[in-house]
């Protein structure tokens, strides 16, 4: 278990069907696009059962449904079960081969084609924790690992943002993108256009060679602007806030919508009052859960607002952190982190690098709560 390097920050409890028991899911820090593992824990008859659920997406995994191998092992890495998935359906099972003559300690697997195609997104818990308590209800419990719905990672609809990024990695990637000619050109164009007191947006994409491209500018109103989400390879969009206001709840909800629509579209840059802030969806599954749990509160003709529960927590913090653009952004970032929203807020520093806005709350001896920034190493 020590060699697994669990990412406890990514720990989640996911629902199972036909039971109110929750499955504990812990991703591993070493996860990548080729191999993506999760430790699964489930309490069965007062005993905690564990397994490692690993997916190996196929290279040619361009369909919307997952294709690849799924291997279930115990915490020592010994094979337990496995299956192959093609476009979302289980097409074969892996079983351990009897290989007593083998000189080497390797595991040979036999692949058995299953005539009846089963949907892979509904993983039966009896398959994950086999041989456990015959007669239990495990056969009736299914887990819907949403990262089997298409892709190699952590819960997206499309591949590129399937694997959750940590906020510091997101800041690094965003900093690199922000040093491109297209980013600078888009930023300059928007700042120039913003003299009219309206919002303007430019989408950035990547061509087949990985070069950053720039879509034509969209013009909007005083408090909103349409974003071009169909630009080839779209991964980010810049827009301005002419009234010098900080990034808003509407910007956050829109960022998640854009990422749901297109898996590569993870980043929103906001140009306001001479500063640049960033919103990066670093964990789409968590972001989807956040917006589903806390949907925007919006009156006709108004911009979206956080629902009461989130709004009040945010304003509590604004009063403590200050109502400047920086204070308000830090307050939003803190609340988003507190609720594991899978959304990272960034601010560009004077050298052009983006820094993630992470804050630690400390209660002083007199009861006052203070907030200090946590820098990336």
């Amino acid at each position, binding site marked *: 278990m020590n060699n697994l390097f669990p990412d406890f920050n990514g720990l989640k409890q996911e629902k199972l069907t036909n039971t109110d028991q929750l499955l504990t899911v812990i991703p591993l820090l070493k996860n990548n696009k080729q191999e993506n593992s999760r430790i699964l824990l489930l309490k069965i008859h007062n005993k905690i059962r564990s397994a490692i659920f690993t997916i190996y997406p196929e290279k040619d995994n361009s369909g919307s449904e997952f294709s690849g191998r799924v291997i279930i092992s115990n915490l020592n890495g010994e094979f337990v079960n496995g299956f192959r998935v093609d476009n979302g359906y289980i097409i074969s099972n892996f079983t351990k081969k009897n290989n007593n003559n083998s000189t080497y300690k390797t595991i040979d697997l036999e692949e058995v084609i299953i005539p009846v195609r089963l949907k892979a997104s509904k993983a039966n818990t009896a398959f994950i924790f086999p041989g456990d308590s015959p007669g239990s209800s495990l056969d009736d419990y299914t887990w819907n690992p949403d990262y089997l719905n298409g892709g190699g990672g952590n819960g997206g609809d499309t591949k590129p943002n399937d694997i959750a990024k940590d906020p510091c990695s997101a800041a690094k990637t965003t900093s690199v993108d922000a040093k491109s000619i297209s980013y600078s050109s888009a930023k300059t164009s928007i700042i120039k256009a913003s003299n009219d007191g309206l919002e303007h947006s430019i989408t950035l994409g990547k061509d087949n060679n990985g070069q950053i491209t720039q879509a034509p500018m969209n013009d909007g109103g*005083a*408090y909103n602007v349409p974003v071009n989400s169909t630009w080839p390879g779209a991964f980010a969009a810049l827009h301005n*806030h002419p*009234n010098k*206001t*900080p990034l*808003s709840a509407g910007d956050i909800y829109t960022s998640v919508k854009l990422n749901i629509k297109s898996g590569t579209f993870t980043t929103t840059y906001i140009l306001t009052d001479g500063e640049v802030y960033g919103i990066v969806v670093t964990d789409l599954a968590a972001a989807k859960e956040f917006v589903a749990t806390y949907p925007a509160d919006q*009156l006709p003709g*108004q*911009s979206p*607002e956080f629902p*009461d529960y989130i*709004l*009040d927590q945010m*304003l*509590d913090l*604004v*009063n*403590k952190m*200050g*109502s*400047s653009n920086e*204070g308000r952004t830090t307050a939003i970032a803190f609340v988003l982190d507190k609720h594991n929203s899978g959304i990272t807020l960034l601010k560009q520093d004077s050298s052009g690098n983006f820094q993630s806005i992470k804050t630690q709350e400390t209660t002083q001896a*007199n*009861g*006052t*709560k203070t907030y200090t920034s946590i820098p990336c190493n």
Partner: protein
Amino acid sequence: MALKPIPQYLVINTKTKNMKNTLKIFVMMVFLMNYSCKAQQMVQTTKDVYALKTNEQQFINKPLKDLLKEIKPEIKTATGINDNPFFFSFRFTPLEQQKKDEGSKEDRISLYVYLKESFDWHYEKRPKGKELVWTKEDAEKYGNLTVIRIKVIGKD
């Protein structure tokens, strides 16, 4: 029999007495009116803040000052959000208490008043160290903004 004229000093005295009585009555009426107006304030304590939401329609499309005059407990802090949607967040505990999450549940209630117009509220331009303190001048400055929505959020 000829009537003797009433001495002038007596006339003046009678008039003065009448004026004094009128003044007394006037003062009493003003006092009673003032008292009765205050008694009619919708929010007597922080427990009553929810009444503003219950009677929201009474304040919609009316100036903010109409709503503020219905609140007896002192508003200790206000944060103006001059972004769309535009609103003020009012609190009834001092900032020092807010920083410690102190105060009774009732006093820690939040009142959000959404406004039709954007308004000039800049944290950085407010008096240093008292940025969030709600003053009489603020009530006057922002009193004519139009209320479009009220939210009351408790600390449950």
